[in-house]
């Protein structure tokens, strides 16, 4: 394992303080069994008084203590004569830590605990500063009122290796090789993260020794590899690999929890949420970075992409929408994913989110240009996002209807000019060939469509009979379909949802004939099977994870998600048509 510590040390040495080293440290502390009271993220914007992290737990000497942890990295990672005395340097930070105690009356256990100040830096103590450093430590901690400990790069390496990487990563040559390969190839845009995914699969399928501590270590390892992946992706200025890898880890980890039947165990959910926090932070970084451009006019269009953009723009737009919706669902779940936001707060948040989504969609025609039948997923997610929101305004309802009709028009337009509808079997190569050569490849399949069926069903929710009548006449020769999860095998379906694509666990209602009358169509939909699966995931308060499965593994969204609105449409749909504009479909 010693030789493998190098990878840990080299990685730790590269970390900066802000958002990197101090994001990783809590994982280490948790794996030691300590409880985190405050993280740098929570303390952001407030004066920290030499306490980036506050925790409590049992120290190596068996005594329960409160820990004030001060973190220095990047340019301050080494202790030098300058870093000791500069403003906000080591001396000032440690002085604050000794003078100002941390108070949290919500945690009475902290009150009378002995205090240990830990200075963490991912560098070394330079010999030239050693004398002065010893003097400062003696002056500040010589009285014994507070204990002091320093974790340099050497201690950090040992701690991380022992508590986090050791069990699942460093001692297994194959695991280590996969991880090293991932990091080596992460700057290649074409790299599909196969090694990383293999590593995650191996970690989650290996024998897990019994005990909470082992579970903890396993999930700490997952957290760590996610953080390292993210950090490496950040270094190459491309977060897409991190989005991919972390989503895969989250999905697979949740699938594993379901399979192990641990979903009702609160500590398990607690540690799983630390993985979700990483994903949410990553998404926040990604969305913050990209949204200002994405919401501009054609912001998701790449000017230099040349002719590829006929495919690239819609693909990018649909992918982006998927991530945006999922991120907003995570936001709505609240900081700890407990949905503790008050109604007014939630209303405000949703109002803001819907505004952003509308801006992105309205400014990017790619968001209304499905090229593949599976693009129904982001479209349905957007629609459900609006319909499930606390309050759907008349303006939003009108917009939503226009959005669906625009999508229908775009499909018609492309069919009219290019001769193709969205590819049904997710054959992206055939799509590339069709667009690239302008000629229909023999394996391009647009005879069937689930997307068009969904759009038609939305018209029922919108009570939009004229549009239905127009659309209906265009559906000649198209095999309209709906996919239902196999509700007779709910557990298999739910676990499968997080392990990959579960097309083999879906029943397809095909060759759906559209009744001539709108009312009959509505009746027909109401008579369709409605056996919603009671997902354990939803029961655990993590329903948004299913959205991740829909956008990541392209699993079908069960029709009951939207059909429930047929009987009970949101306000402004179905009843009061006066607020809906009477625009008509332009292309048939």
């Amino acid at each position, binding site marked *: 394992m010693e030789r493998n510590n190098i990878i840990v040390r080299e990685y730790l040495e590269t970390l900066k303080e802000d958002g990197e080293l101090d994001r990783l440290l809590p994982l280490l502390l948790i794996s030691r069994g300590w409880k985190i009271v405050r993280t740098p993220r929570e303390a952001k914007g407030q004066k920290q008084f030499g306490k980036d992290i506050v925790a409590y737990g049992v120290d190596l000497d068996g005594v329960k203590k409160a820990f004030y942890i001060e973190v220095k990295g990047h340019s301050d990672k080494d202790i030098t004569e300058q870093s000791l005395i500069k403003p906000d340097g080591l001396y000032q930070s440690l002085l604050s830590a000794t003078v100002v105690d941390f108070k949290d009356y919500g945690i009475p256990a902290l009150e009378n605990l002995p205090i240990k100040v830990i200075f963490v830096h991912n560098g070394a103590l330079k010999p030239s500063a050693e004398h002065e450093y010893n003097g400062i430590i003696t002056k500040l901690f010589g009285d014994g009122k507070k204990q002091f400990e320093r974790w340099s790069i050497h201690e950090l390496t040992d701690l991380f290796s022992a508590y986090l990487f050791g069990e699942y990563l460093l001692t297994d040559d194959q695991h280590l090789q996969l991880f090293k390969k991932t990091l080596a190839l992460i*700057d*290649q*845009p*074409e790299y*599909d993260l196969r090694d990383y995914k293999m590593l995650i699969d191996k970690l989650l399928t290996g024998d897990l020794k019994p005990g909470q501590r082992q579970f903890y270590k396993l999930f700490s390892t997952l957290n760590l590899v996610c953080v390292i992946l993210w950090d490496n992706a950040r*270094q*190459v*200025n*491309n*977060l*897409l690999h991190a989005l991919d890898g972390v989503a895969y880890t989250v999905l697979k980890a949740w699938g594993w929890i379901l399979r192990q039947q641990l979903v009702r165990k609160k500590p398990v959910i607690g540690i799983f949420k630390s993985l979700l926090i990483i994903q949410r932070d990553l998404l926040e970084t*990604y969305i913050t*970075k*990209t949204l*200002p*451009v*994405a919401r*501009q006019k*054609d*912001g*998701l*269009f*790449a*000017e*230099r*992409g*040349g*002719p*590829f*953009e006929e*495919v*690239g*723009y819609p*693909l*990018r737009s649909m992918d982006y929408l998927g991530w945006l919706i999922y991120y907003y669902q995570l936001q709505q779940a609240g900081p700890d994913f407990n949905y503790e936001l008050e109604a007014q707060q939630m209303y405000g948040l949703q109002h803001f989110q819907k505004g952003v989504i509308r801006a992105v969609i309205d400014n990017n*025609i*790619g968001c209304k240009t499905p090229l593949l039948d599976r693009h129904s997923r982001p479209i349905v997610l957007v629609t459900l996002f609006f319909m499930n929101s606390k309050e759907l305004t008349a303006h939003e309802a009108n917009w939503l209807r226009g959005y669906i009709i625009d999508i229908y028009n775009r499909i018609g*337009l*492309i069919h*009219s*000019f*290019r001769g193709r509808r969205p590819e049904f079997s997710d054959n*992206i*190569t055939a799509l*590339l*060939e069709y*667009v*690239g*050569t*302008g000629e229909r490849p023999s394996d391009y399949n647009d005879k069937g469509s689930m997307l068009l069926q969904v759009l038609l069903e939305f018209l029922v929710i919108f009570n939009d009979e004229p549009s239905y009548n127009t659309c209906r006449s265009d559906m000649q020769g198209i095999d309209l379909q709906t996919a239902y999860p196999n509700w007779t095998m709910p557990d298999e379906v739910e676990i499968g949802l997080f392990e990959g694509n579960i097309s083999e666990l879906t029943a397809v209602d095909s060759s759906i004939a559209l009744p001539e009358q709108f009312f009959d169509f509505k009746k027909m939909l109401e008579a369709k099977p409605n056996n919603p699966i009671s997902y354990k995931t939803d029961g655990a308060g993590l329903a948004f994870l299913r959205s991740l499965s829909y956008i990541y593994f392209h699993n079908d969204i069960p029709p009951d998600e939207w059909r429930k609105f047929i009987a009970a449409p949101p306000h402004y749909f179905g009843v009061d048509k006066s607020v809906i504009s009477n625009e008509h479909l*332009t*292309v048939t």
Partner: protein
Amino acid sequence: MRFAPFDLSALKEEYEENSPAMQELKTVITDVLAEKTWRFKSERIKSKYPISIAEGRIANDGFIQSGFDCGLSDAPINFYALWQQTPVTYALDGTLSDLMEYVQKIRLLFEVDGAIRNGATLERFRQFLFLAVYKQGNFDPVEQLNDLKTDDPSYSLLNVCFLENVDLWDYSFVKFWETVTKFAGNIGHPHHSSFDSRWLAIFSALEKVLDSQIDFALARKIFEINLGDSPIGKIAEAGLFYLSRKGEINNDDLIGYLQDQRTVNVGIIILNSHLSYTLSFTTQIWETMKNVELKKPQRALSYQLGVNLLENTESLSEQLKAELYEYLLLEGVEGDFEQTRAVFYALRKNLKQKGIGEALIKRLIAVDPYPIEFNSLISDYYFHIDDLDGFFAFIRTYLGDENHFFKLTQFKGICELFTVKYPVRFWRGMVELLIDDEGRYRKAGGRMLSHMLHEQSEHIFPVPLEELNPLQQYKFIVSATVYPMFMDENLKVLVPFLFSKSPIVVELALCKLDHIAISYGPEAINKLQPMISNHPLSTEIVERLNSVFTEDAKRIDQKQRIFEFNPHVGYANLIRPFAEFYAKKSSRSMSEAQRKHGGISSFIKQTTIGRGGGVITHDMKIMPLSMVGASFSLPSYIFIDPIGDQAEMFLFYKKNWSEDFKAWKEIISSSGNI
């Protein structure tokens, strides 16, 4: 590389017995042949013998090149020159078995090097070998050939030597046929890619041998027995063709040939070589042909025969003429472009006849799937009959049919021809299309304009566009700018409208110029400046375009910093296959060189994204990502507008232009724009 014709006398003179050149050469050859590992010790050979022995002298007549032609750059050229000449030595001094041993050794050596497959080298070697064979006098190549395996490269060499000089020996036809058919069976079908000089040698030898024959009946019998779609069958066909030229095959024989599936091919070939036909013979041929089932290659020949009969029959009856036309038009026009073109050109001088041209066009249009190349035939037709109005009428007639819409908007050839011949009339016709009330005509006009302006910029709009009323000008701009054009052409199309009396037209033209400024930047603005120097608002226009360009550059720069949105990063695994598909399409309209050097595919093949997002080119330089894709040889602005298809829809479906015009008016009057 091609060599000068073989000069036997000069070579013979050079290698006179006991000449200094020959003495030197013999010494060298003796040593060379003694070497078992020629190639690797060749340096020693080179140093041992003065360059003048081989290299200097040989260099004078260009042989020196052949060493390089072999691609054996690491070998001394004098050595490779030597091997070409050694047969001469054996011709003069050696025995036949020595010669054959030498041929074998050379074969082994060059099989290793791969030089034996080099055409130029082989050619030269063959010439020397022939000299050797020739000098042997009583040497009979056929006997030698019979002893050699057919896959032995020296077999092929000797065979061609034999065929080229078949007249030097006295062979019976049967013996010749045995040898030549064995050889032909070994070199593949003459109609396939393997056709080469060996086939020329066979056909030429065949004629030489037949020339010396008296018993044509035997030869004909052999040919007729061997007819068929095989290499030997093709020699037999050539033989029968020769015999027909000699008058050995009469008309009755030919009619007999037409009735037999095995002989129909050669029958048609021979008939096609006739310069004229009597009416009765034509009738006989036509009646026979009606009952014969032809395979595809034979059909092509039969259409040619049909044309020949039409054109070269004395006093052809109207009925027979009509039948032949019908046959050609209904059956000769098929999905195969080459064949159809042959029929088309064969009928060309008849196209002016009433009904023939129209029938041909109808037939072409009906072919399904329609090869886009047919457009060139249709263009040619209208130009040939000199009917510009007919061409436009044709466009309008067939554009009404959805099935024909896409294929008929890509005429280029005819536009080039007509713009030269009738510039004003042609452009008036184009303008009428572009401002037509029917969307499909506007669209057709737009597409045709886009295609032709790439080639014909100097003929641009010799018609005064200012004569159009503002609404027509407005329609014209919309129709003319939906499809891609190069910068210069774009400017030429738009600048006249900056002088329009209608502020709406001016504003629309300016909006289009904004696009050009964004796409081409200062280059376009600099080009525009002198073109509008006499415009009262020239300064304001330039300022506006500069500002549009600057603002957009900022926007693009902001976007470029997000690597996740770069398709070469986000969809790296898709963009490569796409580029390959796209290159397929592009290769149809771009030259091969452009595709190799300017296309997106070559760029992608040569680059990888470096750490941090830069692009590492093939020469290991880092190029910023902002350059990615910019090397594509089409103007970038056509991709800047992501809703290009919406613009196309607008062009196609737009009906109420007046309302649109009014809306513009309101916008402009409220914004106070120029």
